[in-house]
């Protein structure tokens, strides 16, 4: 058990974000009885760091306020302070940058972004995403820019939308484009052409909207690679393109040209996310590309991610995200009771020399220390990396103690070289959450009944201990098979890559020691790949038989009687 003084739980939640998702999450959490602080990430507020553990985070915030006017400009008042929260929700909106530069044009009165178009045309867009597809007549916009856009919309004018041409495109931009096009057709009868690569209709009602646009006479020009070329002719921009159906060249000089935007995480949020270590994908959006974080978890327990910060999404979905997140946060707090705070990974005080190797290696910031080292049960994802790295073997994982593994291996030795071992003996170290499930499922195919196979479950491949591998070889195993989840699918994020690296090291070491490294095999396997488990074992057995052949170059020196 974690000592009381080190485990606190604060029923306070910080929501770092703005817009619909942040608001909805805040409302739902308040209704559930939590104290909520919602802060907009902007120039004024910055989140500098999140320290501590789930249930008890210390969040350092910075506020910058322009104050007193002084000679030579404004004086900035800066305030930095730390507050405590039990959980943090990242729910930022994305910022949009018009894709003008991709086409080397500059915005003008006649060249605008989709967002500008949307603002003057469909103030009810949120409603739209919730299924209300009809809008009453809208007032003429108040802003001068808006009035100019309206002025350009006449029955005889041509409007061209360029969406998803220089970027992959997304369902949100397409929804806005389609609803704007429909609205313009209905109200102004202008001629509309939409240039895109894919019509993204994977959202509720969008295929119907696409059809409604066609019914209204909106034209769609789809491109496989390059979109239209933009030529300048005096004041005007001419679109030159080939129609992919007729394979004939066309030109269009639109009276209004609407570009889509790139949607990005603001630099403030990006910075915070990086420093807090919550995880991002390769495209720079929040949440790592690992399905086990779905729907709203981050790489750090107690920190959640909701809404479009993960990538552009329809507002229908961001509301769904918000409410689901509120529930996850609630679950998280409910799970924070002393009975559930079972210390599954624990440090033996007597053995620990406070070298802090574990603290450095833990990928989840789960190790803390005061006068001694402790592992936070919630932040810990049981990857076992710390336990494998600890020089003192001071860290044990419940159900996977070193003793137990060693006992199993000794038993293997005691079984000795019975004649029924006609096949190579293989010790399989497998992640309990993937290989373990596949192994149990493989029961029907009698893998488990094969006495030459010994399966040793690991809580995560990260717990693979090189000592155990060597031990297994020394007690007479012909081969070692290590099974970890597919890349980018490890529930503890790094366990699989860690195990692979460790195997590479062991193989190198073996080679130096004169043992054929082919006796150790590493494979990725997910829980639902029983067939592959069978396949790997079959192949590996063949390899091992080959290696055990006296003609074969290197024999396992530990291997006693041989399989035949």
């Amino acid at each position, binding site marked *: 058990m974690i000592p009381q003084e080190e485990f606190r739980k604060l029923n306070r939640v910080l929501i770092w974000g703005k817009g619909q998702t942040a608001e909805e999450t805040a409302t739902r959490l308040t209704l559930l009885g939590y104290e909520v602080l919602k802060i907009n990430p902007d120039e004024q507020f910055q989140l500098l760091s999140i320290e501590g553990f789930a249930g008890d985070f210390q969040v350092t915030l910075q506020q910058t306020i322009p104050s007193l006017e002084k000679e030579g400009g404004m004086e900035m008042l800066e305030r930095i302070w730390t507050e405590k929260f039990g959980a943090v929700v990242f729910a930022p909106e994305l910022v949009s940058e018009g894709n003008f530069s991709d086409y080397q044009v500059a915005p003008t009165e006649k060249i605008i972004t989709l967002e500008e178009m949307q603002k003057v045309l469909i103030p009810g867009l949120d409603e739209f995403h919730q299924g209300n597809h009809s809008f009453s007549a809208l007032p003429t916009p108040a802003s001068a820019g808006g009035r100019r856009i309206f002025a350009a919309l006449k029955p005889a004018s041509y409007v061209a939308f360029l969406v998803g041409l220089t970027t992959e495109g997304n369902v949100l931009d397409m929804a806005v484009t389609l609803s704007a096009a429909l609205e313009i057709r209905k109200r102004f009868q202008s001629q509309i052409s939409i240039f895109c690569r894919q019509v993204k209709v994977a959202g509720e009602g969008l295929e119907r909207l696409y059809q409604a646009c066609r019914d209204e006479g909106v034209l769609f020009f789809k491109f496989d690679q390059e979109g239209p070329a933009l030529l300048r002719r005096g004041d005007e921009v001419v679109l030159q393109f080939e129609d992919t159906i007729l394979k004939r060249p066309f030109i269009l000089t639109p009276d209004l040209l609407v570009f889509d935007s790139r949607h990005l995480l603001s630099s403030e949020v990006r910075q915070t996310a990086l420093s807090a270590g919550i995880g991002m994908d390769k495209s720079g959006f929040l949440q790592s590309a690992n*399905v086990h974080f779905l729907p709203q978890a981050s790489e750090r327990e107690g920190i959640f991610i909701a809404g479009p910060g993960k990538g552009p999404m329809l507002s229908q979905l961001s509301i769904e995200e918000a409410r689901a997140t509120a529930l996850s946060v609630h679950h998280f707090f409910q799970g924070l009771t002393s009975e559930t705070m079972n210390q599954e990974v624990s440090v033996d005080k007597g053995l620990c020399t406070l070298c802090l190797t574990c603290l450095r290696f833990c990928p989840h910031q789960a190790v803390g220390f005061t006068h001694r080292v402790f592992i936070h049960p919630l932040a810990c994802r049981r990857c076992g990396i710390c336990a494998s790295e600890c020089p003192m073997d001071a860290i044990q994982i419940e159900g996977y103690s070193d003793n137990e593994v060693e006992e199993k291996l000794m038993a293997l030795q005691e079984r000795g070289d019975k004649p029924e071992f006609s096949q190579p003996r293989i010790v399989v170290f497998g992640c309990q959450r993937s290989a373990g499930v596949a192994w149990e499922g493989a029961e029907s195919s009698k893998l488990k009944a094969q006495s030459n196979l010994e399966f040793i479950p690991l809580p995560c491949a990260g717990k693979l201990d090189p000592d155990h591998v060597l031990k297994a070889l020394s007690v007479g195993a012909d081969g070692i098979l290590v099974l970890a989840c597919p890349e980018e699918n490890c529930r503890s994020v790094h366990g699989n890559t860690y195990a692979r690296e460790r195997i590479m090291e062991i193989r190198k070491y073996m080679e130096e020691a004169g043992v054929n490294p082919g006796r150790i095999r590493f494979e990725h396997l997910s829980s639902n790949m029983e067939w592959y488990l069978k396949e790997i074992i079959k192949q590996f057995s063949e390899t091992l038989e080959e290696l055990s052949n006296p003609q074969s170059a290197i024999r396992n020196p530990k291997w006693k009687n041989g399989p035949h």
Partner: protein
Amino acid sequence: MVVEIRNPKFKSIFILNHNFEHNLKVNSKNSKVLIIGGGIAGITAAVALSRLKIAVTLIEKATALGGMVPNYCCKATDACQQCGVCLLNDSLQALSQASNVEVHLQTEVTDLTLDANKFLYTFSRPGGGGEGRAEALLLATGFTPFRAEDKPQYRYGILPNVITGLDLERQLKETGSVVRPSNHTLPTSIAFIQCVGSRDPHLNHPFCSRVCCAYALRMANLIKYKNPQTEIAVFYMDIQTFGKDFSLFMEKTEKQIRFIRTIPGEIQKGDNDQVWLTFQDDDGLSSRKQAFDLAILSVGIMPGSDLEFFKDKLGLPLNGDGFLSEANEIFSSKGIFLAGTVRGPKGIAGSITQAYRTAEEVAAYLKTRPV
């Protein structure tokens, strides 16, 4: 029968031929929420509610939990392709650890009435039946895959080497490889046909199924990874965005798979059981025929078969696409909630998010509803 039990030592679930129900306390008198449908959405909602200490009865008509997902393969190549199929194991594990969830397999609701904010229901199961009551109803009855026979021009069920995306999922899941059903050899050329049955107002399906681009391209990549020589063409109208890092995914996919923007008109039998596809050529100027070893029809998500029953019993409106839609206030005010594909096409991740969201709504409803 795929059922699972808890291993107390490792806190993991194992898939065994075992009766799941034996491991759970039966406590139906106190059950507050009736969940119908034990697919990924129903399971997730049950777990979410049980964590709020709300007692749940989960009724599943099949012999096993999981809905459609246990049919699908892992699509990992050198790395995970984020298909989400293995998430089912996570939720089954969570369910095995949940308290106050009562699971009835092979059980069907035979009657259902709503009376003064209470749901009274009767159910039947092999060797018996019974009745129960609940304060809220959560429908998670899922979907039916499009019946490929309903597109006769593709000759599904007639030509052996025309299979559906679902058949392919099953094949890959069970054997890890794809073979031509006619002679069990590896196909050297494969055609995927997208939107089979979806985006088709003619068949009264004026919607995109939202998952078939994803599963088709991921499986195409998987096949390519296993057998790089296989030539794969995808016939499509529009490719929908899915998953994280989609543009990187497409960049990679476009390098190894041929995309042809048209829908083939028909499939005919060729020599050696090859299939001949007739389609508008890339040049767009004329149609041509090309032989493939195997054609895969990317069937989509269609309304579930039992929706009429719920519509009749509870007076629920179906939306224009034939699904139950929540845009309508009637649902939640009556204590009826929906999660997963029963509401419309979506993938596993979307079903999970929605199950959480719905569980949150159910909890809020139980707190505030008129008694």
